[in-house]
């Protein structure tokens, strides 16, 4: 087992990882930018190294500095969290070259799944159903038009090297194709340095259902059930729940098996998530694979009782999975609400500032709050605006919703605006309560 781990991240995920390490008796080394000198993760870790100025590109994305920090602190492993360098195969390869264990999949696997067009192709070859679309990249407008007509409009043009919702353009009819093609291409080039595009048919009124995967270094791959993340605003998830009430147990089993099949096809190691689109006709399609731990991992932890971060650490340390597929049972229903420091009246623009006063919900059974902020903390403007995740576990969905309502109402924060009121509106909405929502729900139902 590792003696010391360096956490190459910040905010609540860094705190999450530090907590897991402490519980495992592993020493922790944090890295922080100059803006995060007072951050909770910086203070909580056993030691902390400043790795640069506030801008992420000069600090949290600065591979040389982070590797140097690991060598300096003699950290045997690096946990990259999510975002930043978590899916950067160059960084993973660099760790390997410097005898540092990267807590995640192999760099080669990150590359295969990071190229979305390639990943699609690989899944097709493996027999996992994919969204009808192009086989590989689309190089010309003529190719695009031909395929779009064949698939039937509307279609989506997506960046092969993409992520985070960038480089994606919908095309409603053939007249829009040319301009959207060039738009998507240039956004992709600007954000990812690669303008390659692929095409998928837009599956309307679908749900975004993802499956949590764990794989060890011995070829064992299991799934921990699914999460329903259909509630999104501009491709950013707001609320997640597990299990998904839209699918039957039979479908759940099939979905899990497809996910494991997909992960095994690429020799997947460590934690990952396979994202599927689930349409109104009960068909699911592979969308993409995220080769990292995700923000919403707590809902899976709540219903399975498995600490995913600790599993990640054990897998990286060379231990086999501590559970097998048949010993996993899903109990109850979990919901997570993301609390962001944003101003709903200004189109949810990020609203950094100083937290004057804060009271986090607590107490009773099945409530968990993952947060990295504290009263007196100044939220820096350089990073994403998420400040807390409220997670509940209920005996069933109704119970879970009641708990979440209670938790949201108990949440007090002064000094910054948050989306708590919005989450309360969402959770009281009849369509949410009935479970009849899809990825278009928030954008269509709420005047934003």
């Amino acid at each position, binding site marked *: 087992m590792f003696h010391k781990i360096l956490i190459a991240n910040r905010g609540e995920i860094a705190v999450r990882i530090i907590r897991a390490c402490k519980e495992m008796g592993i020493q922790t080394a944090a890295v922080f930018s100059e803006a995060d000198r*007072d951050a909770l993760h910086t203070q909580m870790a056993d030691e902390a190294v400043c790795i640069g100025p506030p801008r992420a590109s000069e600090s949290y994305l600065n591979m040389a500095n982070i590797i140097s920090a690991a060598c300096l602190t003699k950290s045997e492993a690096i946990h990259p969290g999510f975002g930043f360098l978590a899916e950067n195969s*160059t960084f993973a390869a*660099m760790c390997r070259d410097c005898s540092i264990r990267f807590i995640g999949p192999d760099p080669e696997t990150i590359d295969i799944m990071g190229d979305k067009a390639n990943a699609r192709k690989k899944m097709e070859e493996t027999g996992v159903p994919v969204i009808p679309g192009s086989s590989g990249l689309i190089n010309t407008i003529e190719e695009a038009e031909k395929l779009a007509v064949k698939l039937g409009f509307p279609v989506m043009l997506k960046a092969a090297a993409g992520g985070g919702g960038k480089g994606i353009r919908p095309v409603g009819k053939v007249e829009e194709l040319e301009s959207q093609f060039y738009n998507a291409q240039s956004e992709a080039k600007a954000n990812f340095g690669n303008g390659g595009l692929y095409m998928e048919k837009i599956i309307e009124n679908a749900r975004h259902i993802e499956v949590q995967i764990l794989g060890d270094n011995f070829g064992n791959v299991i799934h921990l059930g699914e999460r329903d993340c259909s509630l999104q605003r501009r491709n950013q998830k707001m609320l997640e729940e597990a299990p998904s009430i839209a699918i039957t147990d039979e479908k759940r089993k099939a979905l899990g098996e497809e996910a494991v099949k997909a992960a095994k096809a690429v020799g997947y190691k460590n934690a990952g998530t396979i994202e599927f689109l689930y349409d109104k006709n009960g068909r699911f399609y592979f969308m993409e694979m995220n080769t990292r731990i995700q923000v919403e991992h707590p809902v899976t932890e709540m219903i399975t009782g498995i600490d995913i971060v600790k599993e990640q650490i054990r897998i990286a340390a060379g231990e086999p999975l501590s559970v097998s597929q048949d010993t996993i049972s899903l109990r109850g229903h979990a919901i997570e609400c993301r609390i962001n420091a944003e101003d709903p009246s200004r189109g949810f623009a990020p609203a950094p500032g100083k937290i004057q006063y804060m009271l986090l919900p607590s107490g009773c059974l099945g409530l968990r709050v993952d947060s990295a902020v504290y009263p007196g903390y100044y939220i820096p403007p350089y990073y994403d605006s998420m400040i807390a995740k409220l997670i509940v576990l209920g005996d069933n969905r109704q119970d879970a919703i009641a708990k979440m309502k209670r938790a949201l109402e108990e949440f007090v924060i002064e000094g910054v605006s948050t989306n708590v009121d919005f989450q309360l509106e969402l959770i009281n909405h009849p369509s949410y309560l009935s479970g009849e929502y899809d990825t278009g729900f928030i954008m269509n139902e709420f005047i934003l």
Partner: protein
Amino acid sequence: MNLFKKKKYVPVTVRPSSEYAPHVPDGLWVKCIVCGKTVYGKETGEYKICPHCGGCFRLSAGERIEMIFDEGSFQEINANLETKNPLSYPGYEKTIAGLQKKTGLREAVVTGKGEIAGLTVYGAVMDSNFMMASMGSVVGEKMTRLFEKATEEGLPVVAFTASGGARMQEGIISLMQMAKVSAAVNRHHQAGLLYITVITDPTTGGVTASFAMQGDIILAEPKAVIGFAGRRVIEQTMKHQLPKNFQTAELVLENGFIDKIIPRPQLKETLIKLLRIHNAVKGAGA
């Protein structure tokens, strides 16, 4: 705010270093000579160029040959020549032996015959890893024999120069190589044969003052240092501040000493074009 009331200093337990101690292997990160930034080795790409400033990292003879000559076509000549320490300079033999072991070369230049896009040429590549590619008796002899062979066979020569100057440890014998090589170059020239030099970073001293500047066509790599006397020596002698871009390829080009600066990815292509044009002309005239 010190939330956990941590003390400023804590006792550090010294663990015995194990094989798993993280360390950065040599060469994984390199420093760009031009802009000074630390660059991840793999990011320099197949042409070893700094992604920040475009500066060219120095190549070994092997790397250059691989980049320019058709695969497997380069046949080295006079590979075993090595210095006999003509002045019995103390410590010189030990230094040479160490460098031979480290670089795998016997001396600072690799000469031979090869093909570039099927066109046969005689080539010389100087390697700054070997004593800063200083020119001594062996470099001089190898270069001379190269030009003699090329003259004999009626073939062009492409030379990639790099040098810190004449090799101190061989004294006047090093200096004399300038005249010797220049004479061989001249005989090659009299035979109407093409000689292209590619001046790479850094090319200074006796090599600049002799065969590096004798090319019919003189190319250079971007931002290469090209000069004769060292910058500091000049400043101290003249008691005069020199401009920042002094002795760069760009300034030297401006002042008419070289013909063109070619970015490394386009170098092979450029050489092919030049060799083809001159080959065609030669064929036509023969």
